[in-house]
Structures are given as C-alpha cells and as structure tokens.
C-alpha cells in the first residue's frame, strides 16, 4: 500500500530576489513499512524534501499525496493534526524542552491531540519510553541526560502517538558511535514492528542501515536502489567504525 507518492515535486526558495531551486522535479513512491534513507551531500535538497514530506512546508509545484490524498487540499490546522497523529520527528539536535522531565517531553504530542485528551496517556508514555529503554530515567530533567539518552527520549516522543511514519533527520549526527548505533538499533526495531521509517543522512554507513536508499544531488534523485548488504545494528559494537 502506498503511503507516500510524489509527482514532479519542485521547491523554490525566494530570498531577497534570488531564487534557489532546492528540488527540481522529484518522482518516487514509498510503501507502508519501508525503511528508506535519503542520502546526499549538504545542499542536495534532502532536508527540504524531508520538511515537505513531514508537512512542515508545502511544495512550490507538483503533488505530494499522503495516504492517497494531496496535502495541498489540507488547511494548516489539518496539517497540524496530521503531523500530530501520523508523523513522528527525530532531529539531529534532539530539540527537547529544557528544564522539563523525560516524561513531560515524551508527553508533548499528546497535549496537542485534542481527540484523545487524558486517555491512557500514562500508558502510552510508559510504553514509548520502554521501547527506547529509557524507563529508568522517567523523572530526570532533559538537561541531566547524555546525548544518546536525549535522542532516545526524542524517539520516544516521536513514537508516543503511534504514527504511520517516523522522519529522522541526521539522528546520529550529534552522537558518538556507540550511542549512534543504539539509535539505529531502535529505528530498525521500530521498522521491524511495522513503522515506516525515513532517514535523512549524509553518511553512507548510517544510510546502509535502511532497506532502500534515495540518492540526491542538486535537487534531483540520481539513484534509487535497494540496499544489498544491509547493516544490522544488533550486537554490542561489532559494527562500529
């Protein structure tokens, strides 16, 4: 079943009269349950693509169909609702709220889920934190955590509303290799459990943990292929560089 369909997607930024084409006509589809890496050097347009796929921004021209429906037919509030229920984000710089507990950070998306206020919130949060192995730090403040722990909490926050797809933008970029490996192991586990995962990275090594790689350059996809020797982050450090 198609989760994401993109047709001739173009994004042009207009900054002080200078037009920059970040995406020049992209076409691809992503099925439910896939694990896709979007790869490319900086300036290739991969972050722009993730922002549009994550509904944080709209394309200039072209169509983006999510679960078969063009996102341009949604209002801003409806996109907020979609982001809340169907999408989870993991960022390079964690973006946890400062001076706020692990529990409260994980709870954040639930606060904006107006259809299910106060329903089984505690269970959902505990489940998400257990899935990333952070149950023992539940009352810690975000600034008392190590980088790897912060990213695991960020993943729990992305997970808590049981989204269709998780977008991870350079999730290992600010981590040491051991913590990075732990994060990749969690993402692979989530994919094994049926979540669609889309990973944006510039590292071939990290990208190879996915099942499929979209290679971008200068706003275009230059290759789209399945990963032959997929890396599996399971053991303790055996895949460390």
């Amino acid at each position, binding site marked *: 079943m198609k989760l994401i369909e993109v047709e001739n997607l173009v994004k042009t930024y207009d900054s002080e009269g200078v037009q920059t084409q970040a995406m020049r006509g992209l076409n691809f589809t992503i099925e439910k349950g896939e694990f896709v890496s979007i790869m490319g050097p900086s300036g290739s347009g991969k972050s722009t693509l993730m*922002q549009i796929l*994550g509904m*944080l*921004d709209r394309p200039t021209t072209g169509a983006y169909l999510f679960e078969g429906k063009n996102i341009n037919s949604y209002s*801003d*509030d409806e996109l*907020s*609702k979609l*982001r*809340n*229920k169907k999408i989870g*984000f993991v*960022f390079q710089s964690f*973006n946890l*709220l*400062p*001076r*706020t507990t692990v529990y409260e950070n994980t709870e*954040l*998306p639930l*606060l*904006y*889920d*107006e259809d299910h*206020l*106060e329903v089984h919130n505690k269970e959902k949060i505990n489940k998400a934190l257990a899935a990333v192995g952070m149950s023992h730090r539940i009352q810690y403040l975000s600034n008392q955590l190590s980088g790897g722990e912060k990213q695991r909490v960020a993943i729990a*926050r992305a997970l808590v509303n049981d989204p269709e797809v998780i977008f991870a933008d350079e999730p290992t970029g600010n981590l040491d290799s051991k913590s990075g490996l732990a994060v990749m192991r969690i993402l692979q586990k989530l994919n094994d459990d049926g979540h669609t995962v889309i990973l944006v990275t510039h590292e071939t090594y990290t990208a190879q943990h996915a099942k499929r790689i979209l290679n971008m350059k200068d706003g275009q996809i230059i290759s789209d292929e399945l990963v032959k020797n997929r890396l599996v982050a399971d053991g303790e450090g055996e895949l460390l560089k």
Partner: protein
Amino acid sequence: MKLTSPIKISYKNLMAAKFRSFLTILGIIIGIASVIIVMAIGASAQQLIIAQVSGVGSNLVGVLPGASDEKGPPASVLGIVTTTLKQSDLDAVLLKKNVPNAVAASGYVSGIGTAKYKNNSRQNNFQGVSADFIDVEKNDLSSGRFFTDEEDSGLARVAVLGSNTAKELFENEDPIGKMFSLKDVNFTVVGVLALKGGSAVSNPDELVYMPLSTAQKILLGIDYLNFMRVKIDNPENITRAVADIKYTIRTQHRIKNPNDDDFSVRDTAQALNMITNITNVLKYFLAGIAAISLLVGGVGIMNIMLISVTQRIREVGLRKAVGARNRHIITQFLIEAVFITLVGGIIGIIFGILISLLAAVVINALGYEWEFLISFSSIVVATMVSAAIGLLFGLYPARKAARISPMEALRYE
C-alpha cells in the same frame, strides 16, 4: 491542551531568568501598588475631611450673607464683604413662631489683632459670637464659664480662650479672672475651651472668643454678621427648618421673590455632598496618573515577551512539528504574559496594602484621625487590570510566535 501545562512552563521560564523576570514584574508591581496606595490614601483623606466637616454638627444650618446658586460657593467665601445679615435676623430666627425647630443660634464676626499678657504677645484671630455659641458648636469648656446673653448685650469685655491661645499667652498661669489686652482693649478671661483638634478651615484652639456685640462695636466697628449658625432640634427637620429660616429672613429683608435673596442658607449635608464630589474627582485623577505607570509596565511585559519568543523559537518550531496549532501557541504565550502580570499584580496589591497601612500608622502617630481604608473593589479592579494588561501586551508577541514557520524555527540557531 491542558491549562496547567502552560502555567507550569511559564513558571519554569520565569524561574530560569530570575533577575530579568523580577525587573519585568517590577513594572507591574509599582503600577498596581501605586494605584492601590493612591486609592487607599485618597479614601482615607476623604474620610478625614468629611469627619471634620460633619464634626461641626450634622444638625447645623449656616446662613451666609449674599446670594448664591445652589452648587457654587456663597459670595462671602470669595472674600466679598456683604453687610446684609444683621443681629435682628438672628433674633427673628430664634423666635419660636418663626422657626419652631431652632433650638439655638449664634452670629459670628471675626477679626485679627495683637493679644498681650505681661511679656507675651501674639497675633491672634478672634471671633465675636453669641452666648448660644457653646450650645451650637460641639465645644466643651475645660475651665471657667462661657459668657452670657447679658454680657453680650452689655458689651462686656470678657473673653473665652481657645486652649492653645490660653497656653501660649498665660503659659503656666491659670488665666481665669486675669486680664489681657486685644487690640489694646482689656478683656477679662472667664473661661478656657477644651482642646478640640485642628480643622483645616479654622482652628478653634487658636482663637479668642468674645461677646458678639463687644467684637462688633468695640473691636471692629461694624453692625453686620459675617454669618450665623442655627442648631436644629433634629437632623430630620433640617429641610423644614431651612425653609422656615429662608422665609423668616426674607420677611425681615422685605424680599418677595426668592430669586432676589440677599443671603444663602446651607446645611452640612449639602456641604458634605460638595466636599465628597470634589475629593472624588481628586482621588480618581490621582489614580489615573498612577495608572500611567501600569501602561509603562505593560510595555515592559511586551518587550520581555518578544525576547522570550525569539529565544524560544526552536521550542515553538518543535511544538508545531508535533502538532500544535496556531491557537495553541497563542494561548501558551498569552497565559505566560497573564501569569507574569498577575503575579506582579498580586505582589503589587500586597505592597500597596502594606504601604497604605504604614502611612496610616505614621499619620495616626502625627495625631490625625486617619482611618486605614482599602476597598475590596480596588483590589478586584487591580487584579483584573493586571490580567488585562497581560492580555493586551501579550497579544502581539503571542501572535508573532504563532506565525513562526516550524521549518524556519527548527533551522534557527
């Protein structure tokens, strides 16, 4: 979205930058406190003035020479000498058949002269009054007696001293029976009044009282009265008594049309009304000035909220990424602004009450009957005003925060 969450968040933000938060809140504290203080001190001052005026007696009716309209002051207050009020008017008012409710009445003339006793001398205000004076005014004698009708009509050179005048002129001596001079006329002291306390208009403790006729004929050389006061048996009868007095004096002066009146009759209720109106205007005027500082405090809130929006741009981006809508963001920042101003408002109210209380204690220690008055309504209004300032000055920063694009916010370093 739960309401407790933004309150908790704003509390955390306040605590994270304690000194900056304190400075921001200080603007609101000063504004609210000054409004409370001005309102409290204004109410107490009003109370004090009213108490002094009504202390003269609520069953007194004053008759002043010269016409005046109901609301304006009589001509004599403006320093215009009118000579139309005479002793014969006073006698007529006292006749039972004319004004049945009048129980006592006194005419008043006043002047100033040098009072001398041995080596002591002082510039002294004096008043010529009728023997009824002691009945009309709520004055007590501390020693001796008041002068009589006979002494009045006989131009007796006797005097009753206000307590301060007695003290300064005679120092430790008992003045009763002693002779002193006023405007080079010798007077015998027959009585001393008890200390009454200062009234802003004329202080009875500083005066020398003498028979009306003595003052008119010997000291001043006039035959008219400055004014007279009539004591009515019961405050309820004042309206009728005022009508009777007007009729009596009109008959005396052979006036047919009330518009031609050459005198005016005032009761204390009227005077109190006038004073209340004037002091109310002053009170609200001052509170209005104090409220300007609240406006300045509000601008401070707006400034700090704008800084807060810029500092937390990534937080806003993240909240939007996980599904917060524009109105969620607006609500959060508005609640923060209202939280800050409410905290400031409550601290301001507490400070305002404490300072007003302190002022009351100090002013009481200075010997005034100063009541500590805080109206519940001023506290309610102050609380609502501070919340409204939070809403008003928080709205622009909140809308600015809501308009941040999540994409740009998350990219912001």
